[in-house]
């Protein structure tokens, strides 16, 4: 834990609320930077996102996270009660940290954005509000609000700043994920009202958890399905993933970074936070299905990567593959599985940030991301090549980088599960996916950066990474290496949470 290195014991009042308000104020302030002040938008956004990041880092250094929970009754009417509850625990702390860091770094990365920068940065900050809110919410009402709040900035990011097919991609993203959200909302209704006691349906996590003991098996199984669908689309899990490649392909780089780095995690976060915590019996029932689709996503995503021609689309499919890994980890329903599912979420958040930054930067510098048009660019773009190599290696699970530990733990947890169900051969799929992952990354590397220098495109205007881009990439890479060399730094946050959840699930 960070707090073992340095314990930050000064209690900042309303820290969690500040984490929501600062980006919100920042978004408004940035939006005001229109017209001639456009140039300054990035500085305003930078300052606000930096402060948010600092606060989220402070949170990491806080030894006792429970001091920061805030709870106020918000709405109490007609038999329903919603509260404004913010809290951070082992599950969410890493995600909050990730959000804080990635938003700041994607702001830095996009410092060169010159078209309507005030909108651009305001949207990024607005998205941060939603993302932070999702991870800190302690009430289903707040949770769902924040969940949906993330959609709108992303929609605008894609459709304003996206590529040629941005309208299609944006609306597909918007509608598809919204459909999933509303199905999830039904599930939330079911658990909230099902757990209601004394005629009051309390939307807080705590109350629902307390009332969940009364859920019958059939109820759990059905409602798990609803919630799971909602979250699985967000993750996304095959076959509900097709919005993702399109969204990524068209989204601006910063949007992709946040989409893959933090937004996809909302899905798996939701599964753990809601499905597993509240509906353990449902989880037991759905376990084989989760395992199956997790494996499917893993292998399918990896194979799809091989076939992709667009670098960014390939990275998008690799996200699907890696989130499949998160899925099988969660499906183990064991402490190792949950611990490393969260860790993989964190790891993939960092790694996919690098990948999307690199893919985006390729598009900026070279003018195209089509792999068949590229080749031999490492000589012209050494920095980009180096970061791409680093990102690819991290993603394919090079030991010593954060991705490896996640995969190691996940597969071990899965091994444990496979032994318990007497189907050891299932592990082969995990190992196969590792191999395929290495395959598509290295093949892509070979075709883009190495080999014959391409003659298919005009190379006279290509330029290597700009300074802000290098800073952002360097910082993420440093984090990847830091947590890779010292995984315990992040893992220790999860131990308590995962083992207590595993107790609830009845499988240790």
């Amino acid at each position, binding site marked *: 834990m960070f707090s073992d290195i340095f314990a930050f014991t000064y209690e900042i009042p309303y820290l969690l609320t500040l984490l929501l308000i600062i980006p919100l104020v920042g978004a408004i302030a940035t939006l005001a930077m229109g017209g001639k002040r456009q140039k300054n938008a990035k500085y305003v956004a930078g300052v606000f996102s930096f402060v948010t990041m600092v606060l989220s880092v402070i949170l990491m250094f806080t030894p006792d996270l429970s001091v920061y929970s805030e709870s106020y009754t918000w709405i109490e009417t007609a038999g329903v009660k919603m509260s404004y509850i913010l809290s951070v625990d082992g599950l969410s702390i890493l995600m909050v940290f990730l959000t804080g860091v990635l938003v700041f770094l994607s702001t830095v990365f996009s410092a060169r954005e010159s078209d309507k920068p005030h909108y651009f940065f305001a949207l990024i900050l607005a998205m941060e509000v939603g993302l932070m809110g999702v991870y800190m919410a302690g009430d289903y009402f707040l949770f769902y609000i924040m969940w949906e709040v993330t959609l709108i900035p992303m929609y605008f990011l894609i459709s304003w700043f996206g590529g040629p097919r941005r309208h299609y991609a944006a609306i597909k993203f918007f509608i598809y994920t919204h459909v999933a959200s509303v199905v999830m909302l*039904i599930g939330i209704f079911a658990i909230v009202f099902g757990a209601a006691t004394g*005629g009051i*349906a309390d939307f807080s996590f705590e109350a629902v958890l307390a009332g969940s003991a009364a859920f019958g098996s059939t109820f759990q199984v059905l409602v798990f399905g609803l919630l799971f669908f909602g979250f699985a689309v967000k993750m996304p899990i095959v076959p509900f993933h097709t919005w993702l490649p399109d969204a990524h392909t068209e989204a601006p780089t910063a949007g992709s970074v946040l989409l893959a780095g933090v937004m996809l995690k909302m899905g798996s976060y939701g599964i753990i936070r809601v499905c597993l915590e509240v509906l353990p019996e449902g989880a037991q029932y759905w376990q084989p299905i989760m395992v199956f689709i997790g494996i499917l996503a893993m292998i399918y995503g990896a194979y799809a990567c091989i076939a992709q021609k667009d670098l960014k689309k390939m990275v998008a499919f690799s996200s699907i593959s890696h989130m499949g890994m998160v899925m099988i980890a969660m499906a183990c329903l064991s402490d190792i599985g949950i611990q490393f599912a969260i860790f993989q979420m964190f790891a993939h958040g960092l790694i996919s940030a690098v990948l999307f930054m690199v893919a985006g930067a390729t598009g900026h510098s070279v003018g195209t991301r089509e792999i068949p048009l590229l080749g031999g660019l490492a000589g012209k773009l050494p920095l980009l090549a180096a970061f791409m190599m680093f990102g690819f290696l991290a993603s394919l699970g090079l030991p010593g980088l954060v991705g490896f530990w996640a995969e190691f733990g996940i597969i071990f947890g899965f091994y444990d599960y496979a032994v318990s169900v007497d189907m050891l051969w299932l592990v082969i799929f995990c190992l196969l996916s590792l191999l395929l992952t290495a395959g598509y990354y290295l093949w892509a590397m070979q075709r883009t950066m190495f080999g014959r220098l391409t003659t298919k495109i005009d190379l006279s205007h290509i330029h290597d990474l700009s300074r802000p881009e290098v800073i952002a990439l360097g910082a993420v890479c440093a984090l990847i290496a830091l947590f890779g060399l010292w995984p315990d730094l992040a893992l220790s946050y999860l131990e308590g949470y995962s083992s207590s959840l595993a107790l609830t699930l009845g499988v240790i």
Partner: protein
Amino acid sequence: MMFDSSIVTTIFAEFSPLAPMIVMIIGALVMPAVFFATKRKSAVAAVMIAVIAISMLFNVLMMVDGYQADYAGLFAYDAFAGVMILLFQIVAFFTALVSVSSSETTRMHYGAFNALLLAATTGMMFVATASDLITIFLGIELASITSYVLVAMKRSDPRAAEAAVKYVIFGGLSTALTLYGLSMLYGVAGTTNIEDIAIALSTQDFSWAFGIAMITMIAGFGFKIAAVPFHAWAPDVYEGAATPVTMFLGTGSKKVGFVALFKIFLVIFVAASSTAAFATEELQYIFAIIAAITMTVGNVVAISQNNIKRMLAYSSIAQAGYILIVMAVMSEYALASGMFHMFTHVFMKGGAFLIVGALITVGIGEKISDYQGLAKRAPFIAFAMTLFLFSLAGIPPLAGFTSKLFLFSSAIYDGGVMTQWVWLAFVAVLNSAISLYYYTRVVKAMYIEKGANAERIKIPKTFTAAIVTCVVFVIILGLFPQLIMDFCADAAAVLFG
């Protein structure tokens, strides 16, 4: 005490339950005189607003104070009436406020226009307070007949003329259906007082006459609320009428149908459900099916619309479908949620129509493509429109989301038991997601697409004021629904005894 209804009772004595209506009626009577005396629209508008404000003040005083009284067994002021009257007053207020500067409303007959507006509102308020079939019928008719004229009172526009014809014919048809149903109901129950009907029916078995009464009343009220398949008039009339009037129809007139439905059906069925002889569930299914079809057709057809008023009309149809969930679920919580949704609908749909009206006034067309580049030309208007549309689509944390949250959740759970209407909730949420598609088209046109014209737009102040109010309420009701939801809950408690 801050809210004290004694001032009302002092003035109106035994007519106190009708106090808000009386104020309106007086207003309606003096309005032409005011116009002829001053010949100025603004003076009329000022008086209008004053009248509505006074009426609203009385109503709020009574409502918050928990005033309850009955007049001659025909009208009863209670929490339900108070909430619905408030709703109608708000609608009238907005209509009056913007019609003064709208380019679509009549200039020559402005006094009459306002008088009719007040009369129509009074009719609606009558329905809200009515406790007898006769008063319900009269209220509806008062509201309807005046609105026919309101629709027609657009400056020599062929579309308005056509809309008015369609409206009057369909209004008549619905009146006939409703009246037929009421006559059968009267025949079955032998009385016209709703409470008495409920008591009478609770001891009866199902009869053919009752079935026919139900069917024709559903059809008749279904016309009012524009439920599929009785919705066909709505898009045409909404498109043809002057936009403030469209707003009045879409947010106010439509609710009259619901009030009548609630008044008649809920009271009857709640009373009836205590006796096993009476088949409530079948009719709940009928309503559920109508609700499902209505929201689906409304949303799906809205997708293909290019005229924004028509699109909003279809969206209104869909919203009616959502509110019909109340009739399917028939629980107190559902009713409270439904009423709350009606409120939020006033602000979000009303706001959207206001913007359309404002833009027509400044010369922008009704086509979605006319809205291209609006974000540059009128940032606030575009922003407000986005809020309204997203609220209609149920995007949190806006009012539409919160009210839908209440409404849809009522279809899932009722008093700790999972209801059989979960499928309806599913249909509703999926529809809600579909609706996002066509709302987003408008947002896209405003924000993403580039318009041919880039000059700034300045819209009339009254429109701005009304739109700002709607924006404020769309946000506030989203975040703090209890401001109105509490009253809705009280009101629902009244109908459910």
